[in-house]
């Protein structure tokens, strides 16, 4: 059912991670991504994996949700792994037919695959535990120093929020227009690829026209509610940087230091 769609991939739960300051969650995600890229050997990578698993356990989001988000990127993981397998040379080498595989190539391929998996899982924690609008609010807050360069961060955040808000509305609209065109004899299922792309035009044109009408109405409605931009606006939901945020930051900082130490004492693989 069309009304069942949820925006983003928020997983409803009331865990510590869900209640963290969204600004902090963005910072933590950036830290863990940096950590993943700093790893130089498998031990360091294993430590980051452990940190991520601990974070998932705290978030109470079931593991299978993360496997679900990994499913769609399996081709990318395979592609990267295979490229690395054949193009990295060093150490023992085996060759058969025109292909050559090196010992170092195998290590790198496995390492890269793990790295991508960790990247996806780490960023999924953020999107699973934070409502999209809270994310845009947090981005607005974090980017607010850019105001110095006369960049209207508030407008950008407002645009993101409105885009999120109108996704379900526009999906409904597409369904309505598609049905209306089908009733007039439009054929969306048969024909060559080019025919099918062409048959989308009678859907897209009305969709665009009605979107402009909606934008116009929305602008009126917003100005009727005294919206004049970001200046002088207050927010009902305040973001609070609490003790648990400091705890999470400390945990990540300690892990980061450990990663650097592991890199130093166990040598670099790549």
């Amino acid at each position: 059912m069309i009304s069942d769609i949820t925006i983003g991939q928020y997983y409803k739960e009331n865990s510590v991670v869900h209640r963290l300051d969204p600004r902090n969650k963005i910072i933590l995600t950036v830290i863990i991504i940096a950590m993943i890229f700093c790893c130089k050997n498998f031990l360091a990578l294993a430590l980051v994996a452990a940190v991520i698993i601990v974070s998932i356990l705290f978030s109470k989001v079931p593991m299978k949700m993360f496997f679900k988000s990994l499913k769609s990127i399996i081709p990318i993981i395979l592609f990267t792994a295979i490229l690395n397998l054949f193009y990295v040379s060093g150490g023992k080498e085996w060759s058969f037919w025109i292909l050559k595989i090196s010992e170092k190539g195998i290590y790198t391929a496995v390492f890269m695959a793990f790295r991508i998996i960790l990247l996806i899982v780490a960023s999924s924690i953020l999107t699973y535990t934070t409502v999209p609008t809270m994310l845009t609010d947090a981005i607005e807050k974090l980017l607010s120093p850019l105001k110095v360069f006369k960049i209207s961060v508030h407008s950008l955040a407002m645009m993101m929020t409105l885009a999120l808000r109108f996704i379900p509305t526009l999906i409904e609209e597409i369904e309505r227009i598609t049905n209306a065109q089908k009733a007039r004899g439009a054929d969306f299922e048969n024909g060559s690829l080019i025919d099918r792309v062409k048959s989308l035009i009678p859907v897209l044109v009305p969709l665009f026209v009605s979107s402009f009408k909606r934008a116009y109405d929305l602008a009126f409605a917003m100005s009727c509610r005294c919206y004049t931009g970001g200046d002088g606006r207050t927010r009902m939901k305040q973001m609070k940087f609490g003790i648990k945020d400091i705890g999470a930051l400390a945990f990540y900082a300690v892990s980061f230091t450990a990663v650097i130490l592991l890199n130093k004492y166990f040598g670099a693989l790549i």
Partner: protein
Amino acid sequence: MKMSNFIEFENVCFAYRDEEEGTEVKVIENLSLTVDKGDFVCVLGHNGCGKSTTAKLCNAILVPQSGRVLVDGIDTRDEDKINDIRKKVGMVFQNPDNQIVATIVEDDVAFGPENLGISPEEIRRRVDEALKQVEMYDFRLSEPHKLSGGQKQRVAIAGIIAMQPECIVLDEPTAMLDPRGRREVMKTVKMLNEKFGITVIFITHYMDEAVKAKRVIVMDEGKIVLDGNPREVFTHIDTLKRVGLDVPEATELAMLLNKDGIKIEKDVLDIDELLDCVIGLLEDKN
């Protein structure tokens, strides 16, 4: 000037420019009108009679080309005071989807008060209160696209009353709703008027909604044709039909019965009143 005149139209004229033909299309012609504080006015008329334009003139979305509109003594042409006017006169539009800005009900209701720069605690209080008033408090954490049309429109109304306006203008708020949604919205608006004394200007083309107002204004071609309480207005069946409007069935039936020589009250508004009259008549005969 009397203090009770909340909105005043003085000889207002308004015309749209037809870009294709390059001509001016007159929408409002020399309209004068006053709305008292606490009144419940229903504006009726068929499509293109200028009723929506009248609504938009009330809170400075449009400004008159000649004449003036005063809201609580402020001229709507005064651009510096535009937000003062919009704080006093809230507006609800026809399509509920196009006026909801947030992905969560309570965030949407908070949007107006947030724009006014009110403190977070006060916004929270107002949002909860507004949602309770429109009986949508249980849905405060829902996503708007999962609500019915009537519920969405009530959220939109809550978003306006959280700004604590003195007047709400509703521009055909029920045109896109099913009968149940229409009843919900009408009930909410009537409650706001009676319980909280909010002035209501309700634009519609449904007769059964107009019947519930305290005052009905019928418009045609940018002019006021009829103005009075519903009972008075609906006795002018011929005028209403001339401007392309229906008359409540009960009122029309009463008129027809009168024509046939049956003495029955002419100003009945609904089936129940008509029934009472008929029963009264029968009892008199016996």
